């Protein structure tokens, strides 16, 4: 391993500009003559718009234009789309209501877009918006996830009279019923997977620009996948054909899923730029981010686990109601279906699984993918069930899991997935040793001597990453393929630019991708630059989400590098006057086998462009290759996390005392960056478990619309994490890597809740387990009261 090659903990090359204020984010983009947009948002969760009077606002100082949904309709601007078709169990397609970028006739959540004011300054736009007079007929709001189908009153969308988007199912129903019929024991739980608000550090922003000379548009936007944004804005919303629309996602300050989607604001900014003949800029205020970024999770689930007399799991039944909010966001329908149900088997060999998911509309912000997307929800179900079942059966929770682990691969589950490789017991053993499991009773006793409660919780998770292959996801309803592209451009002096369809918004691609190239071509990492996020530079790509950029994005680079090496060998053969087959390539040098004749990579690059040494008819000049890579399977990262908590029964405050993560991500490119991803993931997962509770009141007002009421995790909330890895090489991509970006957020919530319920000695506490919730739970636990 070289100092900058695969496996080296290279410091992140991009961090210097991030931490010295030299990053270029969308809000740093300022175009000549730009105007500023402010969006008037609905104060009501559900209302008919009887009239909008913009005359007074238009007369305010600095105002350039005021637009409403009518203007979009007049210009035949299409609505926002949901790109994944789900069919109900009766075969009918999901019921997608209209989703105009500016409301037409109705508003459906607090924060919904009513009108846009474009003015010389942002303040002027905001001031003028107060002069818009909207006459609303307020309707009853549908807020409650479990009650949405029976809410009565006017439905959120006409197309779904009982607010049901679809009734999805997956698995083998009859075998599952049979398994429950012969079960020795059935464990039942009811769970709520709490709604989360993403809170990327950088709020969403957009600058739309239009060039009157060429009739071309440029959109700068906070996107995780600028090419998908261009595709949707062109093909579906109809802003401009793709060759007339450039989308740039420059430095992006975190996404966690929330910047995958194509939103109203960027649509309006790029459309309005031509309309007003000036660039139009918008940057969300934090309150707008709370109100209108696509939220995550929001499931209500009943689940049952059947075990036989020997403690083997023989069946799993899950019924989930998933709240998708007021509109179907870009990939919302895939999250509680194909990103959720296929993961419910966890790490376990469960022969019969049947899952039903009813997706509902409500008068709340749209819900879509958020770090983990479906997999945290699935992991929470199966890992809470396994914990509760172990306790009911009087088994050690670690050994109960071990008894039910999948141990031979490939393993076909009853819910689509075919697990390719893994060693779940290896991760469990390492985690037990690292946390000092045998020492836990002594630690618990010590806590009790101080009047504290101590608990330990497991989470043995599996996730499906590198979502693919395209043909497979297409058969499940995806509107796009999920391959990735790469282009490797070798300059005449031997430096290399890699154009990737992946997008880095904090993941460190400028480092890890360059490590791969440096390693493969034997050139200094400083000679490699990574280019992403601009549709005029990178021809096409699918972007970054679902922990896919390593497994899919880097594999595309490998494929392009294969082609580069093949071409370079030919060039070297000509220069060294040897047969191509006699050329060896190692450590950046091409050598004629068995001789000391050699030429380094940079010289080959120069010769490829000088082209004096070969006949242009036999070999093209130049050294540039592209590749599209479509994997053969998902990847299946897995691992075991153990959380140990101490609870103050006087206040209900939970402190995390130990956290052990043992993950199998396959081959690691940069273990330091992997560890950072695990840290961030755990923090977000713990945020869900302990802190982050999204609260709408019964009228649909968001009560947690600022940091005064929405608690984010802080560094203070965590102990030093013990992050370890095991490795089984992923067989479905050339690098053997699996993906690590979401693991922590997937693993963490059940580990925390299992630890708290272990400490309290009972089986149920809702997320977020706030001090009040824990204190209340302690009060209804008689045995603990007696012990005090």
């Amino acid at each position, binding site marked *: 391993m070289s100092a900058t090659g695969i496996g080296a903990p290279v410091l992140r090359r991009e961090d210097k500009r991030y931490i010295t204020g030299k990053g270029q984010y969308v809000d740093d983009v300022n175009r000549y003559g730009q105007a500023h947009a402010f969006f008037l948002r609905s104060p009501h969760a559900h209302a008919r718009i009887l009239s909008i009077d913009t005359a007074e606002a238009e007369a305010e100082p600095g105002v350039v234009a005021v637009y409403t949904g009518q203007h979009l309709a007049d210009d035949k601007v299409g609505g926002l789309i949901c790109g994944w078709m789900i069919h109900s169990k009766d075969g009918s397609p999901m019921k997608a209501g209209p989703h105009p970028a500016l409301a037409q006739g109705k508003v459906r959540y607090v924060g919904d877009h009513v009108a846009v004011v474009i003015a010389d300054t942002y303040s002027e736009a905001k001031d003028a918006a107060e002069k818009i007079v909207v006459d609303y007929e307020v309707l009853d709001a549908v807020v409650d996830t479990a009650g949405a189908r029976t809410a009565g009153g006017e439905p959120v969308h006409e197309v779904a009279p009982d607010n049901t988007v679809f009734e999805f199912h997956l698995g083998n129903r009859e075998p599952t019923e049979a398994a429950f019929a012969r079960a020795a024991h059935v464990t039942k739980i009811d769970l709520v997977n709490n709604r989360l608000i993403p809170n990327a550090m950088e709020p969403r922003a957009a600058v739309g620009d239009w060039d009157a000379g060429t009739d071309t548009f440029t959109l700068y936007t906070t996107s995780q996948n600028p090419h998908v944004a261009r595709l949707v804005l062109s093909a579906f919303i109809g802003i401009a054909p793709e060759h007339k629309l450039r989308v740039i996602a420059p430095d992006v300050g975190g996404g966690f899923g929330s910047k995958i989607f194509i939103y109203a604001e960027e649509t309006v900014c790029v459309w309005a730029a031509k309309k007003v003949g000036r660039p139009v800029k918008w940057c969300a205020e934090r309150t707008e981010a709370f109100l209108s970024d696509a939220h995550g999770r929001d499931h209500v689930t009943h689940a049952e686990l059947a075990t036989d007399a020997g403690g083997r799991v023989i069946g799993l039944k899950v019924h989930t109601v998933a709240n998708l909010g007021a509109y179907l966001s870009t990939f919302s329908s895939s999250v509680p279906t194909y990103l959720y149900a296929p993961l419910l088997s966890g790490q376990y060999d469960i022969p019969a699984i049947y899952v039903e998911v009813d997706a509902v509309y409500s008068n709340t912000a749209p819900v879509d993918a958020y770090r983990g997307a479906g997999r945290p929800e699935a992991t929470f179900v199966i890992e809470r069930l396994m914990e509760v079942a172990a306790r009911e059966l009087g088994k050690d929770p670690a050994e109960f899991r071990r008894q039910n682990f999948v141990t031979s691969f490939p393993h076909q589950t009853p819910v689509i997935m075919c697990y390719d490789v893994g060693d779940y017991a290896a991760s469990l053993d390492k985690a037990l040793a690292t946390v000092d499991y045998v020492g836990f009773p002594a630690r618990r006793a010590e806590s009790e001597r101080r009047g504290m409660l101590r608990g330990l919780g497991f989470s043995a998770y599996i996730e499906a990453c590198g979502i693919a292959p395209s043909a497979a996801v297409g058969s499940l309803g995806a509107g796009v393929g999920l391959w990735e592209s790469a282009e490797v451009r070798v300059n005449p002096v031997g430096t290399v630019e890699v154009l990737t369809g992946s997008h880095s918004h904090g993941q460190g691609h400028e480092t890890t991708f360059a490590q791969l190239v440096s390693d493969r071509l034997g050139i200094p990492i400083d000679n490699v630059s990574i280019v992403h996020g601009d549709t005029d530079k990178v021809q096409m790509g699918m972007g970054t989400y679902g922990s896919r950029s390593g497994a899919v994005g880097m594999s595309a680079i490998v494929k392009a590098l294969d082609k580069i090496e093949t071409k370079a060998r030919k060039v070297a053969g000509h220069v060294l006057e040897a047969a191509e087959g006699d050329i060896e390539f190692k450590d950046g040098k091409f050598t004629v086998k068995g001789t000391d004749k050699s030429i380094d990579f940079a010289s080959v690059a120069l010769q490829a462009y000088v082209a004096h040494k070969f006949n242009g008819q036999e070999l093209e000049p130049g050294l540039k290759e592209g590749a599209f890579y479509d994997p053969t399977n998902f990847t299946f990262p897995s691992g075991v996390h153990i959380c140990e908590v101490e609870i103050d029964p006087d206040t209900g405050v939970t402190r995390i005392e130990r956290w052990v993560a043992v993950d199998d991500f396959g081959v690691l490119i940069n273990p330091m960056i992997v560890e950072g991803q695990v840290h961030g993931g755990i923090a977000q997962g713990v945020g869900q478990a302990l*802190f982050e509770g999204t609260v709408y009141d019964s009228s649909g007002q968001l009560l*947690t619309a600022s940091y005064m*009421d929405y608690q984010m995790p802080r560094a203070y909330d965590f102990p030093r994490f013990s992050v370890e890895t095991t490795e089984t090489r992923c067989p479905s991509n050339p690098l053997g890597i699996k993906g690590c970006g979401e693991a922590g957020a997937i693993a963490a919530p059940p580990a925390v809740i299992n630890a708290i319920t272990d400490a309290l000695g009972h089986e149920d506490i809702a997320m977020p387990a*706030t*001090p009040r919730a824990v204190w209340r739970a302690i009060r209804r636990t008689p045995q603990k009261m007696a012990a005090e």
Partner: protein
Amino acid sequence: MYAFNYHRPASLAEASAVLVANADAKFMAGGQTLLPAMKLRLANPSDLVDLVALRAELSGIRREGDRVVIGAMTRHGEIATSDVLLAAIPALAGMAAIVGDPAVRSRGTMGGSLANNDPAADYPAAALALGATIVTDRREIAADHYFLGLFETALEEGEIITAIAWPIPKRAGYEKFRNPASRYAMVGVFVAERADGAVRVTVTGAGASGVFRATDFETALTADFSSAALAGVAASPEGLNTDIHADAEYRAHLVGVMARRAVAAATA
């Protein structure tokens, strides 16, 4: 933020005059509450009367016999690290050290906080427990007569706090349970045994009408100033706030927990 007129008066008299002359004018000391409210368009003063030019005149911490006098424009960070205060009333210095966050403590002032009388602010609990005197440009107000409810005080229009005089107690302690999100006091309890032996227990963050005295706790501690003396004493949920973070019953419970811990801190 809406447009407003900005004033920076050079004297107390001028400051008061500007405020009185403009119906929707507001004083600004450190601005740590007012400016965020203005940014969110929740506050809309026509005129902002910035007292920063009076800082030299209105800040400083000095011992005057059996009390410590703190200038109204003295910042939390200065109060937290004052050797004079750390020696005389360490519980008050400790309180200043946990007001807000470092940014707030480097700008926010004691006078500004007491003038605002946020129901979740820290200083009102200390003032009511220690028997502070609020000194203004026109009179002196005893803490017992100063706090009149949520964001309500005895200050008259245009009246400016110039200093706060703090009697030095025998012993005192403060413990707060923070709102998990905002980190304001969800329940803060200050306990003091004054120089004359009188015991005060005051509660901030919890009451629907702002800071209040927990007299049952005072009675118990008067008999025996120890945590153990509070073992059987419970606060009533009546009159306490219920919100998404804590209901009245939980707050009442926390009053007891924080009171016991505050006494423990005072007697440590």
